[in-house]
């Protein structure tokens, strides 16, 4: 009994405070566990040939079209690999190589075997595209690391660089996975683990019942997972003494997942990345330990930290330049300060003067004045037009109102309406105004027309928002929470200089080159997203509180334009647009077919069609030739 206890104690001690691992041992352990995972993975593929034949989800005859469209030369290579005999041969070769690596063979054979397995990942990954998971990435990294380390084995400092790289990838794998989970409401609330356990694919009925009956246990377990992942980098603290215990905990986590979630391969795959972490975290290896191994070279983490600082610095530098350009605005832009203290940047086009109506464009939420480019340019051939950026967008500033030094009250749509009314009075100079609003801009325009009925004599709504849309359209309601989650992170991410990582939106190419630069600057600057989030929160709460019957009546004519695909995806939207038009006794509703909510402005033909409809409204409102001959009565505001 005493002997068993002593042995158990020694096992635990060896596990928690092992002897320092050497380079050689670190590479070999990584290599063997990775090879074992390759072996299991290949046998799993070999016993399921149906997955690759017609009717299987990796039938290359169908799946290849995606790769051929993107990378035709690579696709032709994968076409050869995807042949039944070639795929089977590659998996058999993998199995054989893995078995060799499990054995005692040394030196160059191991390095060649490692390289072969790593190369097989590259060759087969696309071929097996559907069904790939984290283990495929992990074993590719550990096997490539082993191959490279063996190739460089005459230079211990280079081997150390490779081992550090795998160790830091492992640290990111756990650490970043944890931090990104914190961005998910399910993880923060503790609902994630029961949610996963609930699924048949990744869960287990008994685990699900346990977690549902014991929500506190579920929450504690969830937070434990988050802590284990988010704090992984702690393995490098305290001379690395905590690393063995932490790594054993993660292995236990993977073992539990193997049973509960059916993720067996994850155990050996992730374990393969542990030995580099053990090697690099061990403070003892900084000195020679008399076992013939030179001390560890810790240059790589320093170089990486330097490169990271450089990348962040470059991102911040680019961001400051971008912010400067956004605030400077475009050539020929005027500035106008509203009663609220917001300074709006506006662009006039046309400059005909006279008594023809002026068209003022109101953009949507998270949009830019430049979105109106095609419509405004087309319309400017017939009348004067004004585009402007709402407070907080582009060069327009948002000055939260302070009353007697008290903190600012929350922004509401009333503020946007008030600014628009001020702007209208400023640019109109007594001339009649027609407002054209897209999305939420449409609703703002309608309210402004209600506030200033003498000045605003017509409203054109382009795929406008309706205050009842959240309540009456389940499609709109479902998207709400997701939108808020998405918006919250945008501003801080861009402030931290991540702008260059943000891919240009796909519609950017539809606009002329002159607009693309300024648009990308605004898109990658935090201001757009901060303004958008502020407006989105206000719009959400106002629309949720809206009661049917609150729609005001207007005397001026209303034109409502619906984008064809908006109506197709959500027929309730078209109904709502008609209702908005019906706010006036003089209403018209048109549908622009085969176009969606954004492209109705970005696509030149669609935008010019919209401009044509607005022009008809303007002509309707323009004084006729007889009236123009007579002295026009001043239009009071």
């Amino acid at each position, binding site marked *: 009994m005493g002997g068993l206890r002593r042995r158990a104690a020694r096992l635990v001690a060896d596990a928690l405070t092992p002897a320092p691992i050497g*380079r050689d041992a670190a590479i*070999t352990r990584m290599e063997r566990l990775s090879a074992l995972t390759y072996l299991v993975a290949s046998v799993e593929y070999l016993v*399921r040939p149906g*997955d690759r034949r017609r*009717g*299987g*989800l990796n039938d290359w005859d*169908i799946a290849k*079209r995606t*790769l051929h469209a993107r990378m035709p030369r690579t696709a032709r290579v994968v076409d050869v690999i995807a042949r039944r005999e070639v795929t089977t041969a590659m998996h058999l070769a993998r199995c054989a190589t893995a078995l060799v690596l499990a054995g005692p*063979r040394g030196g160059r054979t*191991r390095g060649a075997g490692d390289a072969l397995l790593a190369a097989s990942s590259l060759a087969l*990954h*696309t071929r097996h*595209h*559907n*069904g*790939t*998971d*984290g283990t495929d990435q*992990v074993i*590719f990294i550990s096997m490539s690391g082993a191959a490279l380390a063996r190739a460089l*084995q*005459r*230079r211990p400092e*280079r081997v150390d660089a490779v081992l*550090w*790289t795998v160790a830091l*990838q492992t640290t990111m*794998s756990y650490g*970043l*996975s944890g931090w*990104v989970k*914190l*961005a*998910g409401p399910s993880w923060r609330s503790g609902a994630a683990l029961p*949610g*996963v356990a*609930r*699924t*048949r*694919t*990744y869960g287990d*009925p008994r685990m*699900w*019942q346990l977690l549902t009956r014991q929500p506190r246990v579920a929450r504690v377990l969830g937070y434990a997972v988050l802590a284990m992942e988010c704090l992984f980098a702690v393995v490098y603290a305290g001379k690395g003494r905590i690393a063995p215990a932490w790594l054993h905990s993660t292995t236990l986590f993977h073992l539990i997942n193997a*049973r509960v979630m*059916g993720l067996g391969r994850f*155990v050996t795959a992730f374990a393969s990345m542990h030995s580099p972490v053990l090697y690099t975290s061990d403070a003892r290896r900084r000195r020679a330990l008399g076992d013939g191994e030179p001390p560890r070279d810790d*240059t*790589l983490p320093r*170089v990486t930290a330097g*490169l*990271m600082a450089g990348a962040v610095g470059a991102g911040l530098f680019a961001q400051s330049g971008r912010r400067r350009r956004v605030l400077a605005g475009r050539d020929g832009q005027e500035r106008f300060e509203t009663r609220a203290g917001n300074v709006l940047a506006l662009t006039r086009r046309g400059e005909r003067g006279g008594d023809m109506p002026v068209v003022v464009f109101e953009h949507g939420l998270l949009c830019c004045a430049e979105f109106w480019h095609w419509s405004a340019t087309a319309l400017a051939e017939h009348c004067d037009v004004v585009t402007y950026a709402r407070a907080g967008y582009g060069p327009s500033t948002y000055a939260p109102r302070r009353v007697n030094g008290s903190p600012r009250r929350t922004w509401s749509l009333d503020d946007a309406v008030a600014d628009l009314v001020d702007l209208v009075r400023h640019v109109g100079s007594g001339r009649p105004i027609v407002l054209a609003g897209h999305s939420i801009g449409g609703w703002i325009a309608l309210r402004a027309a209600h506030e200033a009925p003498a000045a605003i004599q017509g409203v054109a709504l382009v795929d406008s928002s309706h205050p009842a849309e959240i309540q009456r359209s389940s499609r709109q309601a479902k998207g709400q929470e997701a939108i808020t989650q998405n918006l919250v992170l945008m501003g801080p*991410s861009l402030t931290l200089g991540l702008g*260059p990582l943000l891919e240009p939106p796909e519609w950017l190419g539809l606009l002329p080159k002159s607009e693309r630069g300024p648009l990308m600057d605004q898109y990658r600057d935090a201001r757009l997203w901060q303004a958008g989030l502020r407006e989105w929160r206000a719009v959400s709460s106002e629309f949720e509180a809206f009661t049917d019957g609150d729609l005001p009546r207007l005397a001026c004519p209303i034109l409502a334009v619906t984008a064809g*695909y908006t109506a*197709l995806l959500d027929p309730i939207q078209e109904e709502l647009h008609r209702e908005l038009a019906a706010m006036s006794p003089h209403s018209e509703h048109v549908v622009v077919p*085969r176009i*969606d909510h954004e492209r109705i402005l970005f696509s030149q033909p669609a935008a010019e069609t919209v401009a044509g409809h607005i022009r008809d409204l303007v002509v309707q409102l323009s004084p006729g030739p007889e009236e123009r001959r007579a002295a026009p009565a001043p239009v009071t505001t």
Partner: protein
Amino acid sequence: MPRPRLSRPDAAARLRPADRVATAALAVGLGSWLVATAASQHPHRAFDGLRRRDPIGLGLPNWRFFAPEPAQHDYHVLHRVLHADGTQSPWVETTTIATRRWSHVFFFADRRREKGLFDVAGELLTLMADPRIELTRTVPYELLRNAVELRVRADHRDGPVPRGFQFLLARHTGHDEAPEPDYLIASPFVALEDDQ
């Protein structure tokens, strides 16, 4: 069993300037890869700008496992058949999800297929959001259609070939059978040729 050994380091060679440059280049190359990996893990896929340059998907590892939101539903493919005599079958599940077993810890051949359905369903749902795309001509749709056709033909191997079938993709809350399933996409009628 003799352990594989690293060969003895080449001390003199290490001091040559060309060698030092090579070592530095290796460190910068590996460090850059680490920085690029870190820059590609934002919770929003919109910041995956660097990933566009890695179409194979192995160059920049994706460490966002079950993050920011984990999978909390199962995808199911169901189909019904229009028999040769004009009668209609009820809706049945095309494939089943394997019941969890202890053996899955060591070997789980169906894991790939189940994950594959998640991948295909996810792609299909993304494509569905764009009304300009004709869904029935897309890769994920055809993969699902062929999977159903395979099952239908296998089921009716011994009798007359059915006139055709229809399939749908649904999402359900797994072991929690109380909520109604979400029926996501229904295919049009797929006619079967008599060629087999």
